[in-house]
């Protein structure tokens, strides 16, 4: 007779083991080390919550303090490898295998450890892929998550930074996995139930908030004239003609410039209500002026942003908020929205090759993907039409039958031809290829594939790759906006001029834009202080961004 409840039995054993250190569901912080050793078993698949924003930092440290003689060979399945403790568990031999999505600040160390074979890599995923695999073949046996508060029954309030928590809990708890939450405090009644207590086995009162990185704050003071020029080109050359209303922005300064130009330059072009009305976007502080001047109708968020909590709570017509009034973010749903409900993704990158592949990998760094490849890709399963989607599809295949023609999502790469320290944006070969060779990866870590990208915007102009009919045209269109980089200077001048006549390459003057008009005075806010004032004092930026 088969035992169909072995997982449930195993969960029961873990819960019993954990209860020795708990009072009901509450684990005192002083008992955390012993508790962790009791509930985590050698070989477990563990999801440690943490992405590019929030971190279950107390539980991460506790995990890294386990004795590898007692617990080892863990398989970590987690969105972000961000905190030093995330890699300490491998350094100390507690964990062995890793499947992840984003590494950010640990990108250098993770590369060194991969080279040193300290980590057995499953794969680098996008967020959405990793979430998907939680339900298929990477289901966690233990999830270590973070919330703002809990009641004694384990009901959790995750607050504005809900982010990954619901999907992690869903995948773990309903499949006989153990869910342990760190919370700032235990309360009698949580402000709203984000995670039902039935799904949560234990709660640790950390006594301090979980760590959140203000990743999406861009100081308008640092936006350059060249970035403003690229923003003007994007607005006038792409947003306007395609009528892009539903979109996602990356986190770079170019897109921050776009957000800040909407109420000024965009207004002057008469685009209000015609573009940028619906976003899948974190609450970017630089979006405040556009929201305040009535450009934006709705924003759904992957996560929150430090300091934006009160502002978001005061704008429930724009943001998704709970009955307690604060933001409800959800990374999985927002990724889905970005993939299927947006007509455009626009973001910056570090390298673009002659085919149009782009990557944020530089030698010796593995930053992971996060969500950008999902945002920056054409969803082949999309079936609903929209004006920009149809127009892009028509440009790509003008001769095909309209009723059978797929539309295209606009995937726009925007940047200056030279980045920090004069490093060129355009390269012959992506560093990602070299990295893949050295690490013996099957795939080079490409952020946006050539066949997904539709436009490249630099201060030199816009290359519309939808209009290119062969690989030569594509290469020359890219060279045509590559400026004074080696790639740009090697362009075929005549061919680029022909492409320009066809509108494949459009220079600022072709769009009626004088580069000399790219002035910081066009920005609706020129400092973090301006953003704070524009929010009516509701935006409370972290200390490091203040100059008052």
């Amino acid at each position, binding site marked *: 007779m088969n035992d169909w409840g072995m997982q449930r039995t195993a969960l029961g054993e873990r819960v019993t083991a954990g209860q020795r250190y708990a009072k009901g569901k509450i684990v005192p912080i002083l008992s955390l080390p012993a508790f962790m050793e009791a509930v985590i078993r050698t070989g477990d698949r563990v999801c440690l919550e943490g992405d590019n924003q929030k971190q279950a930092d107390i539980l991460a440290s506790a995990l890294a303090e386990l004795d590898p003689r007692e617990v080892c060979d863990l398989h970590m399945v987690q969105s972000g490898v961000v905190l030093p403790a995330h890699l300490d568990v491998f350094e100390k031999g507690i964990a062995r295998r890793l499947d992840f999505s984003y590494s950010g600040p640990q990108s250098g160390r993770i590369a060194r450890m991969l080279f040193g074979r300290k980590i057995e890599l499953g794969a680098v995923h996008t967020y959405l892929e990793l979430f998907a695999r939680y339900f298929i073949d990477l289901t966690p046996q233990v999830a270590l998550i973070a919330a703002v508060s809990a009641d004694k029954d384990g009901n959790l309030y995750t607050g504005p930074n809900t982010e990954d928590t619901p999907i992690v809990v869903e995948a773990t708890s309903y499949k006989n996995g153990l869910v342990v939450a760190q919370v700032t405090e235990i309360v009698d009644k949580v402000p709203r139930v984000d995670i039902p207590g039935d799904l949560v086995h234990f709660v640790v009162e950390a006594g301090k908030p979980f760590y959140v990185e203000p990743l999406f704050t861009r100081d308008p*003071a640092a936006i350059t004239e060249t970035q403003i020029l690229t923003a003007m080109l994007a607005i006038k050359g792409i947003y306007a003609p395609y009528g892009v209303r539903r979109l996602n922005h990356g986190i770079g300064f170019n897109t921050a410039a776009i957000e800040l130009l909407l109420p000024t330059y965009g207004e002057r072009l008469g685009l209000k209500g015609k573009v940028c009305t619906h976003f899948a976007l974190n609450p970017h502080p630089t979006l405040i002026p556009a929201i305040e001047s009535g450009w934006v109708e709705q924003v759904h968020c992957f996560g929150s942003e430090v300091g934006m909590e009160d502002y978001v709570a005061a704008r429930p017509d724009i943001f998704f908020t709970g009955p307690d009034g604060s933001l409800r973010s959800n990374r999985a749903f927002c990724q889905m929205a970005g993939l299927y409900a947006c007509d455009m993704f626009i973001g910056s990158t570090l390298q673009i090759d002659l085919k149009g592949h782009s990557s944020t990998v530089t030698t010796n760094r593995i930053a992971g993907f996060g969500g950008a490849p999902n945002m920056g890709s054409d969803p082949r399963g999309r079936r609903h039409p929209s004006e920009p989607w149809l127009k892009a599809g028509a440009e790509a295949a003008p001769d095909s039958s309209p009723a059978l023609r797929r539309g295209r999502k606009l995937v726009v790469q925007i940047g200056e031809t030279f980045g920090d320290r004069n490093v060129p944006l355009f390269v012959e070969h992506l560093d990602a290829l070299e990295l893949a060779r050295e690490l013996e990866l099957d795939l080079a870590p490409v952020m946006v594939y050539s066949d997904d990208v539709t436009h490249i915007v630099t201060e030199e102009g816009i290359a519309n790759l939808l209009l290119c009919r062969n690989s030569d045209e594509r290469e020359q269109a890219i060279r045509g906006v590559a400026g004074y980089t080696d790639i740009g200077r090697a362009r075929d001048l005549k061919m680029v001029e022909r492409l320009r006549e066809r509108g494949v390459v459009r220079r600022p003057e072709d769009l009626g834009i004088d580069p000399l008009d790219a002035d910081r005075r066009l920005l609706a806010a*020129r400092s973090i*202080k301006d953003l704070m004032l524009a929010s009516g004092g509701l935006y409370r930026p972290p*200390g*490091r*961004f*203040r100059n*008052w």
Partner: protein
Amino acid sequence: MTTVRADAASLSWYEASARQRIDALIDRGSFDEFIGPEQRETSPHLSIFDLPEQFDDGIVIGRGHLDASSVLVAAQEGRFMGGALGEVHGAKLTGLLRAARKLKEDVLILFDTGGVRLQEANAGELAIAEIMRAVIEVRRAGIKVIGLIGGRAGCYGGGSLIAGTCSNLIISEQGRISVSGPEVIETNKGVEEFDSRDRALVWRTMGGKHRYLIGGADMFVDDAALAFREAAIAALQLDRRCDLAVLAAEQERLERRLKRFGHARDAVEVWQSMGIEKPAEIPGLPAEEFLRRAADKRENADDAR
């Protein structure tokens, strides 16, 4: 008399270059530069360090009209070597002040400086001493020396001492006045003494609002060139001396400050003991509301500077 308005609408003082500030401050088209960039009077010392030079060595000096009165103007460029004073930079200002004394023309100094330029530290230090002496000599001749502070580099080091000799100081929230910079204090005394990355701390300790409240500056303006211009016009109307009575009054003023606030650990405590309502809100307030709360509570340095 009709006011000649400068073309200054919406120009941020903090962001503007030295030349843009002068253009916005002075009556349109009235500026006459002395030893302009075409003279190429660059620092003779930067090449020792293989560092780039600037044709005006980071300071623009000359004469212009402010609301139709002739004034001598000096503007430091805070982005070139942090606006730091070197030999040529300093001597241009010294010469301007010496001329002011002879010509009896008021002087505006648009500060934007980290202090002494370390690649020519001795020359810079002496320039500061010479400038301070020249300021006092100018003031004793009945001429006003007005400092305007609101640039990126702030007004640090020796620059802050020069500011301390001026007859009148106009400051914006962005302006900072301090002898030792945040990084210098942190490097020498540790992060416990001063966390230079805590920018809110930097501003509340050294920034324009605090300086205005304790009497370290006389006029508080928005970060807009036009606001600086209007304040400068107003400051030119004031009568300011530099004699025993004034400095004895300053002695009293500074002694009183030590008695009142000498035990405070933080600016908010200082503001609290001044009787400012809701002192913790001060950094976030727009200028108008700040001025309302500061009125009658702030320490006044008129006739005691």
